[in-house]
């Protein structure tokens, strides 16, 4: 097995080097595209696994959820588009497994019109079925309503005024779970999974004005911005991108998609770093000896 792994790694390095060489030789950025494609496809076929530490923000979120009393009510949002599913869906799944495992009651909703309701419906139902949870008693899917600023504000007053019915059109009063949930006062924690700026409104409207703690899972691109809010205490913990999701999967001891995806990540990251180092090496050589006709710059 180790032998084949060594062969596999040598192959990876060799092909990367050839493609990088071609990039410089031809001055064509498409060789880089080819390399990226190769490094993503390879680990999907052959699985590689490496250990890693858990970031403190993920731990903070995990501990905040862990510290909730059993059977508390948690709101879980699906504020993401289908386009970021690879990053966000594992977060939602990990959160659902963790919360269902603690017998929490879950209210889900979305501020995304395009696909939001169907994603939340599909993911929650699948996870609930796996945990043996019942719709209406253990979880409720409110679905989507337009104009999220008004929705977020309105739910502070009364959830029912915004969502007279759930996603499938059942009156809230007919759902046992919703009878004890009037507004944010009855919700112990809000777990936002988002790929866009809505997460900031959850803080600036809901956390700031109603005091309900908000934790979030966001795409890696948004994470640095949201760090600012973890630092200022407006946000309780943060999952950033696939690594955050993988960390969370490890914490709840249910490694899945995110953990697997990390090896492809490693390869692409390494390739980019190597290409930057080689690029600079050649740049300095060219500057020292004058331009030598290689098309490196236009690549």
């Amino acid at each position, binding site marked *: 097995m180790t032998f084949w792994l060594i062969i596999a790694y040598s192959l990876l390095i060799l092909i990367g080097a050839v493609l990088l060489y071609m990039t410089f030789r031809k001055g064509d*950025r498409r060789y880089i595209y080819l390399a990226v494609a190769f490094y993503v496809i390879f680990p999907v076929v052959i699985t590689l696994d490496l250990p890693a530490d858990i970031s403190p923000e993920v731990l903070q979120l995990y501990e905040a959820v862990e510290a909730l009393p059993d059977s508390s009510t948690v709101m879980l949002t699906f504020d993401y588009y289908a386009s970021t599913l690879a990053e966000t869906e594992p977060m939602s799944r990990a959160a659902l497994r963790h919360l269902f495992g603690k017998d929490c009651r879950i209210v889900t909703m979305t501020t995304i019109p*395009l696909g939001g309701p169907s994603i939340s419906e599909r993911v929650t139902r699948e996870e609930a079925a796996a945990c043996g949870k019942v719709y209406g008693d253990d979880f409720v899917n409110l679905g989507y309503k337009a104009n999220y600023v008004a929705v977020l504000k309105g739910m502070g007053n009364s959830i029912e005024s915004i969502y007279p019915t759930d996603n499938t059109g059942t009156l809230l009063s007919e759902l046992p779970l919703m009878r004890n949930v009037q507004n944010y006062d009855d919700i112990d924690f809000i777990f936002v999974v988002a790929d*866009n700026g809505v997460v900031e409104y959850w803080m*600036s409207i809901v956390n*700031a*004005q109603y005091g309900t703690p908000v934790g979030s899972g966001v795409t890696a*691109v*948004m994470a*640095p*911005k949201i760090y600012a809010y973890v630092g200022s205490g407006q946000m309780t913990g943060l999952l950033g991108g696939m690594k955050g999701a993988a960390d969370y999967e490890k914490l709840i001891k249910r490694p899945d998609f995110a953990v697997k995806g990390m090896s492809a990540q490693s390869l692409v990251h390494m390739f980019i770093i190597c290409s930057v180092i080689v690029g600079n090496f050649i740049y300095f050589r060219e500057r020292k000896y004058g331009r030598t006709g290689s098309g490196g710059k236009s690549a």
Partner: protein
Amino acid sequence: MTSKRPDIARFIVLFQFAFLILSSLTAAANGTAGDRVFQIDRLNALVFMIVFSVVILIYTRWARQGRKLFIRKINGLDEVEEAVGRATEMGKPVLFIPGINEIDEIETIAGISILGRVARITARYETPLLVPVRYPMVLAAGQEVVEQAYLEEGKPDACSKDTVRYVAGEQFAFTATVQGIMMRERPATNIFMGAFYAESLLLAESGNAAGSIQIAGTAQPSQLPFFIAACDYTLMGEELYAASAYLSREPLLLGGLKGQDWIKMILVLSIIIGAILISFDAGEWFLELFKSV
């Protein structure tokens, strides 16, 4: 029309003060926090808003009175005219994207304002302008500013109805279409001004591959690194909002920038004072001034 404006300005300042006094009275007269008609917790925000408005309006007033107000050079904005000129020389169009958000986002309005300035330049040079937009309301606003700009430059006929066009409702469908425009119409200059999200790099890299000069501006901190990497000039955060004033060279608008600087200095001082007070465990009351509920 111009003579009427100071009256509105004076009115708003007076109004705000009256509002402040009235609300403090209501607040004082009222019972516990939850019962109050006025949200007394937000008094600091009200005071801040008033100070902010007053400072900006004072500078605007000074600008109107003809005081010389110096504004430093903003990299990127000086290049707009040059970049349009380049497109003219090459006989290729200029592509302008006022962000991908709806008009209920102030960044989009900033983008539309800049579009007004850029359209004047393209009108002057008679360079074709392409403005794909993602929301119908932005389409309406965009058409309005472009038509007005061409009218004021005396070239209403150079502006076609489809200069500003609605191309697609969804973020990435919009991006796919713009990528296509970049590859087929080969604009010599791409200007991105407004709220951009993940598509920033898709747009900027395609534009780069097509060999266009690119000037970008956004207040989304998460997209700035990509514009910096793939565009020739990038306006960061505040500079986007300053752009329309800067391009217009109207003293009235530039006055506001001075006001902003003044507030910025107050904030910098507050941060330093606050940090020092906190270091000696004496800053709780000071932090309270900046609370937001």
